[in-house]
């Protein structure tokens, strides 16, 4: 199976004062449809940069990012905008810039393309999918952190994306909210075949992912292959047709 998203030898650095800080070094990562991949790292490790580069919201200094086989660097601005509206959902818990009701906020990405009536129907559907239908008339400020995460996911999935990029969805959530949000993301991958690449601030949030990695000092570390399975029952994430698509620098060399 071809990966939907593929990062090859991606590098990125920033100037911090007189010094250059390299946040990604030679990062290789593939995400296939129906896979949830979680990248753990401490604050400032470059997790958000990794997601932004995956969506071409930032340009890498080196390397290639492909979506559905297309090198994102070759897209024109309009093509990229269309891609972000239709195929890539960007989920972060920043909320709307204006004081919108949540139904308006979730409908926004579809308004121009589908018109008001259809966009609102899709927004209601997305809110229902994440279990937040009753918050349609509420405003961002009145929601709890857990509710904000769920609404942000609804805002991401309303465009029926192939790929969801999710930035720290479980920061500051309690155990119950965290399990709910992560369970939802896993079900979006399992049941709807969405490829999900998410960054997480703590390890419990890794538990629902198909594959895990950690990012630190620019290196994307991937756990070593596991010992042979003793159970006769195959693990859920190794169904036929699924591919493990995380590669460390050492493994790709």
């Amino acid at each position, binding site marked *: 199976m071809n990966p939907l998203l593929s990062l090859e030898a991606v590098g990125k*650095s920033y100037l*911090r*004062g007189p*010094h*250059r*800080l*390299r946040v990604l*070094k030679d990062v290789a990562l593939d995400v296939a449809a129906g896979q949830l991949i979680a990248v*753990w790292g*401490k604050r400032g490790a470059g997790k958000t940069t990794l997601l932004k580069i995956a969506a071409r919201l930032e340009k890498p200094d080196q390397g290639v990012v492909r979506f559905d086989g297309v090198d994102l660097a070759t897209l024109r601005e309009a093509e990229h905008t269309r891609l972000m509206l239709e195929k890539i959902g960007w989920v972060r818990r920043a909320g709307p810039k204006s004081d919108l009701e949540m139904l308006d906020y979730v409908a926004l990405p579809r308004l121009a393309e589908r018109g008001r009536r259809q966009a609102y129907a899709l927004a209601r559907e997305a809110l229902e999918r994440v279990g937040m239908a009753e918050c349609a008339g509420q405003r961002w400020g009145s929601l709890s952190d857990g509710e904000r995460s769920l609404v942000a996911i609804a805002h991401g999935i309303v465009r029926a994306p192939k790929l969801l990029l999710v930035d720290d969805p479980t920061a500051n959530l309690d*155990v*119950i909210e965290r*399990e709910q949000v992560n*369970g939802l993301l896993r079900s979006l991958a399992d049941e709807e075949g969405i490829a999900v690449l998410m960054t997480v601030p*703590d*390890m*419990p949030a*890794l*538990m629902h*992912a198909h594959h*895990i*990695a*950690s990012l*630190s*000092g620019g*290196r994307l*570390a*991937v*756990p*070593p292959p*596991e010992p042979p399975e003793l*159970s006769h*029952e195959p*693990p*859920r*994430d190794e169904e036929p047709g699924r591919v493990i698509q995380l590669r460390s620098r050492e493994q790709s060399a």
Partner: protein
Amino acid sequence: MSAKIAVLGLVIEEPGPAHRLTAKLRQRLSSAEFVDSNVYSALSRLERDGLVRARASDSTSTDYEATEDGVRHFEQWLFASSSAPPLRDELHMKIALCQPRNLPRMIELVYGQELVCLGRVQELKRSFERLRPPDPKRWSGLVLVMVRDAELAFWESRLTWLQGVRESLEHMGAGFANATRGQREKPPESPSAGFANATRGQREEPPEQDRAGYQNASRGQREEPPEPLGAGYQNASRLRREA
């Protein structure tokens, strides 16, 4: 924590045969790494001490159930204050005792330990995937998630520490490379200039490929390390905290 008390707790929770208790122990306390024989020897010790008793069952195997003494003994353990875990780690010793010339190999050693930690997190994830997803809104699910999170908190803190160590060593390596080049190009400013550069240059990347940089660094160290690694590392940590 002994296998004896863990098995007693499981028998109190639900009487059953040894093989079922073994499977439960593996699922519920995988991090403790008990082996099957621990359960059998624990059961015979518990029976000898009058804390559990065998009872007839429908199947060919023997079921075990807790006695009143067993329940009392378990509750005494449950509510006694827990001792602090011992903090003795071979890697701490290795870092404390390594020398600047060991930098490149120490970096790889620490990175290897990071992968080991990630591997343990992955194993834990897989063992949970074999269970029915725990529902944290129910008692049984909540305690399962809390114990799992305790193990994850351990790995998370260990991995965070390892990453900090590796990043500091890498910056130190870059500093050595700069210092070595500087020595070739002009006379040294002061005996500790190399480490001053190293700490100033924490956020600066090695100008060459990492591995080449480390090699230069280790070559440089064979010439003259300006001060012990420990002092440089402390400076590096202090500067990071201040930053």
